[in-house]
């Protein structure tokens, strides 16, 4: 395959940045999108140019590290992670525009690499279950209905890649935060702290400068893990219930 790439190049966070065009030839349809970028970077390195910086880690679709806004969609045209996107999704002669996630809360580090530390800080604010020290509890001590366990697991499949924020016209993080609120609120171990958790995580989300939700559903439609919009409704319920019921601080 022969391709034309239009890649966002930006030296550093304060650089204005701009698109640069690259021609690639001999790309196999069986390559993953990241392998195609590896080919580009090898070319650039051989020419003594600065390779294109992009995030990646496991390349198995489970770590949430890869990003890229490809031809107007996060993770490209298929509902998967960029590492699981293959070049057979494109045609010979295609022009592919590659942009970084665009959000105030995801500042660009370099080229296509963005800082998703805001997600970490949201998790730190309440996305956990407090565990007391002591004896190891029995694994089957608390019965959990299969249907609830499955629902919690569905929410927990969120890998925190940020495609929801990238897809949302408001750069809203509602789908991510709601998945994290849900996976714990559904289970008995997490239920104890669900009210405070919802309040703290929403407050942190707002502080990071993410947008509000218009319920367009773009986040869920682009989510590589197909996190459902019902999570956002659950977060709203938890948040409103929390603000009505938690003790005054």
């Amino acid at each position, binding site marked *: 395959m022969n391709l034309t790439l*239009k890649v966002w190049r930006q030296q550093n966070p304060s650089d204005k940045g701009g*698109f640069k065009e690259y021609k690639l030839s001999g790309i196999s349809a069986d390559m993953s999108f990241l392998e195609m970028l590896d080919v580009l970077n090898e070319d650039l390195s051989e020419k003594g140019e600065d390779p294109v910086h992009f995030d990646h880690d496991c390349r198995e679709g489970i770590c949430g590290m890869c990003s890229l*806004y490809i*031809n*107007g*969609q996060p993770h490209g*045209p298929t509902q998967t992670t960029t590492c699981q996107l293959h070049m057979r999704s494109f045609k010979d002669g295609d022009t592919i*525009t590659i*942009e970084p996630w*665009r*959000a*105030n*809360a995801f500042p660009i580090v370099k080229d296509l690499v963005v800082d998703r530390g805001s997600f970490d800080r949201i998790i730190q604010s309440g996305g956990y279950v407090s565990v007391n020290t002591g004896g190891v509890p029995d694994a089957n001590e608390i019965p959990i209905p299969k249907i609830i366990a499955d629902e919690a697991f569905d929410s927990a499949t969120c890998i925190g890649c940020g495609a929801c924020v990238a*897809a949302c*016209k*408001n*750069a*809203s993080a509602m789908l991510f935060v709601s998945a994290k609120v849900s996976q714990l609120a559904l289970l008995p171990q997490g239920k104890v702290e669900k009210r405070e958790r919802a309040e703290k995580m*929403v*407050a942190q*989300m*707002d502080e990071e*400068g*993410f*947008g*509000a*939700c*218009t*319920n*367009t*559903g*773009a986040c869920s*439609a*682009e989510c590589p893990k197909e996190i459902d*919009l*019902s999570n*956002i*409704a*659950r*977060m*709203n*319920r*938890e*948040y*409103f219930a929390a*603000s009505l019921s938690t003790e*005054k601080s």
Partner: protein
Amino acid sequence: MSWVSKTLNSTLGKKLLMALTGLFLILFLVVHLAGNLQLIFPDEGKSFNIYAETMATNPLIRVVSILNFGFILLHAVYAVILTRHNKKSRPIGYAVSKASENSTWSSRSMGILGTLIFIFLLVHLRGFWYELKFGEVPMVTYDGVSYKDSFAIVSAAYQNILYVIFYVVSMGVLAFHLSHGFASAFQTLGINHTKYTPFIKKLGLAFAIIVPALFALIPIVMFIQGS
């Protein structure tokens, strides 16, 4: 900050206000439509005129109408606040965007649709509400009681084809706004369940088609009757 203002100032709280005021305005549309359909009753406006008089004098209706104005303004003001916040959340946009792949046009255009509805409301209130309240309205007598002939004002206004077209187009805009807004309000309130969400979505779509269509029918029928 008190817990109330803290909640209402969060992004979720602002959306809650949008949803609650939106749902109130949806209820208002039903009442408004029910009253206005009397305009096309074949009784030369008698039932409409009596109804309009009741609406203008009943103290309970007065309170609700003030609330209604308040909620329209609140809905619009919060829309502006949220839109500004959302724009700030993505200062630099994408060069290429395929938003049509993941969301409906109406869901992405609520702001512009709402603005058009707001402009319609200004014209609408100037043409009817202001005219009936502060303008010169002819009187009409039914069974010895005299009423403002509101029907005559409306019927005269709808003889202008441009006015009729403006109304019909505005109702189309309202239809798109409702097609997203109705179901969206329930989602914001946290009402999402496999048992009833499909019903809410269908109801919302039916509402978005039927209510604006019936509203649009009134000026069309009155224009045809008058010409």
